[in-house]
C-alpha cells in the first residue's frame, strides 16, 4: 500500500508538471513573454564534406543580412542553432527533427543538397515550421510537395536551365547533345533545357547520363565528337564541373559551344583556366552584376568575412531578408503564423541578384542572366529570361 501510494503521488506530480509545462508552452509567446523571448533560427546546412564551403557561405550571407538590419527579427533578439546536415539525405529527417522538435526552432534555413531538402520537407510539412530553402534546387519542394510554410530564396533546377534553350535556338543551334550525372538535379536541369529547346524547334541529338559522381568522361566525349552536334548542354557542379570543362577542351571539342547552368563555372572558374573560355551559362546571379545593390553587398561581405561572396551567399542573404520582412510585418509575433506566411508571400526582396518576388508556390520569380567566360572572367551578356517563374507542376497551393 505504502508503495502504491508513493507511486500514485509521484504520478500525479509528474502529470501536474506536464500540464504546467504544456500550459507554459501555450501562453507566453503572445502575452507573458511577448516580444522579448529570442527568436530561434535553425540552420540545416553542410558544415563538413564537399559542400562545407557552400554551407558556410549561406550562413554568412544570412547573418550579414540581419546584422545590416540591426541584428533583430521583428524587434526580437536572435538565437542561431546550427546542425551539420553532412549532405546526407538519409539523415535529412533526423537532423531536421533535431532542430524542429529538439530545439523547437521558429524557423529552419537550409539545405544545400536536394536529397536533404526532400527529407527536411517531409518533416516540416508535418510540423508546420516556417522553412526557407537557401539552395537546394529540387523542383518537388515547390512542386508536388509545396506547402504554405515552405519558402525558397534560391532557384529550381528547371529555372537555371530552361532559359538556355532560347539562347541556343537564337544562336542557330538545331542539334544539341545534353549530358549530366544521373541524379535528380542533373536530370531536372537537362529536362528543363530539352523542354525549351524542342519547343523552339530544336532537336536533342542524344541525352547522355553518367553515374553520379563518376568523373571519367572520355568515352562520352568521344561520343559527342562523333555526333558532331551544334552545341552541348551539360549540368555539372563542383569537382565534376572543373574536370568536365577541362576534359572537353583537351578533347578538342571547343569548336562546339558548351552551355549549362551557372554551376558549371561558378567557384571553379579560376581552376578551369583557359579551358573555360567561351563557356555560356545561365543563372539567377553573376558575381559581376553591375548594380548598386550587388556592389554594396559584395563590399560588405568582403569586409565582414574577408572573402568574395558567391551565389550561395546571396541566397543566404535573401533568406535573411525574407524572414526580416515577414517578422517585421507581424512585429515579432512568430506565433501568428498565418499573418507571417502572408507577409512573406508578398515580400519584395531587393536582392543583390535584382529585385524578386515569390510565386504562388513560394519560389523566386526572378531574372535569369546569360553569362559567358571571356578573358578568364564571367561576363554578363544580358538577361536570358525576364521574371521567370518555375511552372511548379503538381503544386496545389494558391
Amino acid at each position: 500500500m505504502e508503495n502504491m501510494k508513493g507511486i500514485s503521488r509521484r504520478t500525479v506530480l509528474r502529470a501536474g508538471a506536464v500540464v504546467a509545462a504544456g500550459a507554459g508552452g501555450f501562453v507566453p509567446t503572445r502575452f507573458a513573454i511577448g516580444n522579448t523571448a529570442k527568436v530561434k533560427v535553425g540552420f540545416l546546412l553542410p558544415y563538413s564534406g564537399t559542400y562545407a564551403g557552400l554551407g558556410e557561405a549561406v550562413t554568412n550571407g544570412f547573418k550579414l543580412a540581419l546584422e545590416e538590419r540591426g541584428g533583430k527579427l521583428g524587434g526580437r533578439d536572435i538565437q542561431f542553432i546550427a546542425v551539420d546536415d553532412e549532405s546526407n539525405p538519409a539523415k535529412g529527417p533526423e537532423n531536421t527533427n533535431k532542430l524542429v522538435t529538439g530545439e523547437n526552432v521558429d524557423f529552419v534555413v537550409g539545405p544545400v543538397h536536394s536529397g536533404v531538402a526532400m527529407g527536411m520537407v517531409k518533416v516540416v510539412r508535418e510540423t508546420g515550421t516556417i522553412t526557407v530553402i537557401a539552395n537546394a534546387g529540387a523542383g518537388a519542394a515547390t512542386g508536388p510537395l509545396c506547402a504554405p510554410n515552405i519558402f525558397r530564396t534560391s532557384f529550381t533546377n528547371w529555372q537555371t536551365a530552361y532559359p538556355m534553350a532560347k539562347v541556343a535556338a537564337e544562336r542557330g543551334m538545331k542539334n544539341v547533345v545534353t549530358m549530366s550525372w544521373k541524379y535528380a538535379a542533373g536530370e531536372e536541369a537537362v529536362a528543363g533545357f530539352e523542354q525549351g529547346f524542342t519547343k523552339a524547334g530544336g532537336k536533342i541529338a542524344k541525352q547522355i547520363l553518367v553515374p553520379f559522381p563518376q568523373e571519367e568522361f572520355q568515352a562520352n566525349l568521344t561520343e559527342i565528337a562523333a555526333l558532331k552536334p551544334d552545341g552541348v548542354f551539360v549540368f555539372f557542379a563542383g569537382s565534376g564541373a572543373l574536370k568536365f570543362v577541362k576534359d572537353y577542351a583537351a578533347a578538342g571539342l571547343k569548336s562546339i559551344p558548351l552551355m549549362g547552368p551557372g554551376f558549371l563555372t561558378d567557384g571553379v572558374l579560376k581552376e578551369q583556366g583557359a579551358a573555360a573560355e567561351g563557356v555560356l551559362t545561365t543563372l539567377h546571379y553573376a558575381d559581376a552584376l553591375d548594380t548598386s545593390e550587388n556592389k554594396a553587398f559584395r563590399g560588405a561581405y568582403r569586409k565582414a568575412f574577408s572573402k568574395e561572396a558567391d551565389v550561395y551567399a546571396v541566397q543566404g542573404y535573401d533568406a535573411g531578408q525574407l524572414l526580416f520582412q515577414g517578422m517585421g510585418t507581424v512585429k515579432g509575433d512568430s506565433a501568428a503564423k498565418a499573418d507571417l506566411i502572408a507577409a512573406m508571400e508578398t515580400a519584395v526582396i531587393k536582392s543583390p541578384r535584382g529585385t524578386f518576388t515569390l510565386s504562388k508556390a513560394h519560389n523566386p520569380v526572378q531574372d535569369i542572366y546569360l553569362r559567358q567566360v571571356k578573358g578568364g572572367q564571367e561576363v554578363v551578356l544580358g538577361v536570358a529570361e525576364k521574371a521567370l517563374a518555375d511552372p511548379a507542376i503538381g503544386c496545389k497551393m494558391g
Partner: protein
Amino acid sequence: MDFWFFLIQVLNGVQYGLLLFLVASGLTLIFGIMGIINLAHGAFYMLGAYLAYWLARTTGSLSAAVLLSLPIAAAIGYAIEALLVRTLYRRDHLDQVLLTYGLILIFNEATRMTWGADVHGVPVPEALNWSIKLTDTLSYPAYRLMLSGVCAVLAVGMYLVISRTRFGMWVRAGASNRDMVAALGINVKLLFGVVFAIGAALAGLAGAISTPITSVAPGMGDSVLILCFVVVVIGGVGSIKGAFLGAMLIGLADTFGKVFVPDFASFTVYGVMAAVLLWKPRGLFA
C-alpha cells in the same frame, strides 16, 4: 564513325585501365602480399594529389611536385605501418578494416583542414599541353598518352622487380611464410614496412600524376578505392599480372558500358566482377 569510333573507345578503355592499374598496383601489393585490407589506400591517392597540387603551386613545376610528393607519401606510409598497422598482422581482417577506415576519415578531415574544402585543379604542364588530332572533331590530349606510357612502364617494372630480383623474392617469401623468412635472417619487420611504404607511394604517385586530368577535392580517393578493390579481386589477390589484366578489363567494361548500355553504366563494372568470380572464384591469377 563505326570502326574508328570503336577503335578510339578501345583506346579510351585501355588508357583508363592503365590509370586504374597504377592505383590498384599498390593495393595489390599491400592487400595481396601482406594480407592487410588497406581501406586507406584511396586516402594515399588523395594525399598524393593534394601534395602535387600544393607543391606545384609553390615550386611552379608539376614534375618537381610529383617527384617531391613521392618520398613524402612513402614516409607517411612507412610511419603508419610502423605505428599502427604492424600491431594488426596477427589479428582479424575486421580489425584492419576498422583501423584503415578510421584513417580515411582522419585523412579526409586533415586535408580539409589543411587545404580547405574547395575544389582545385592543376594545369597541364606546357610541354605536354598539346593534343593529337584523331578525327576532325576529336583530339587526344598528349598528357593522357604520356600518363598511359608511365603506367605501362611501371607495370613492366613492377612485374620484373617482384619476379626477378632478390628483393622481390623476399617479398614473395615473406608473404607465404614470414616466420621461415625471419628464421633465415631477413628483417621481416623492415621488409613489410618498406612494402607498405612502396604501396602508399604508388597510390600517391597515381594521385599526383593524374592531377592535371582530375579534380583535387576532399574525398576524391573514396570512389577510386572501390574500383581498386574490384580490380584486385578480379585479378586475384596479390598478383601484379592479375591486377594489370583486371584493370584493363574494368577500363574497357566501363568505357563500353557507358557508350552501349548507358542505363546500366553504373553496374557494368560489377557485372564483369560477378561474371569473373563465378567463373574463377579466386580471381584470374590466384
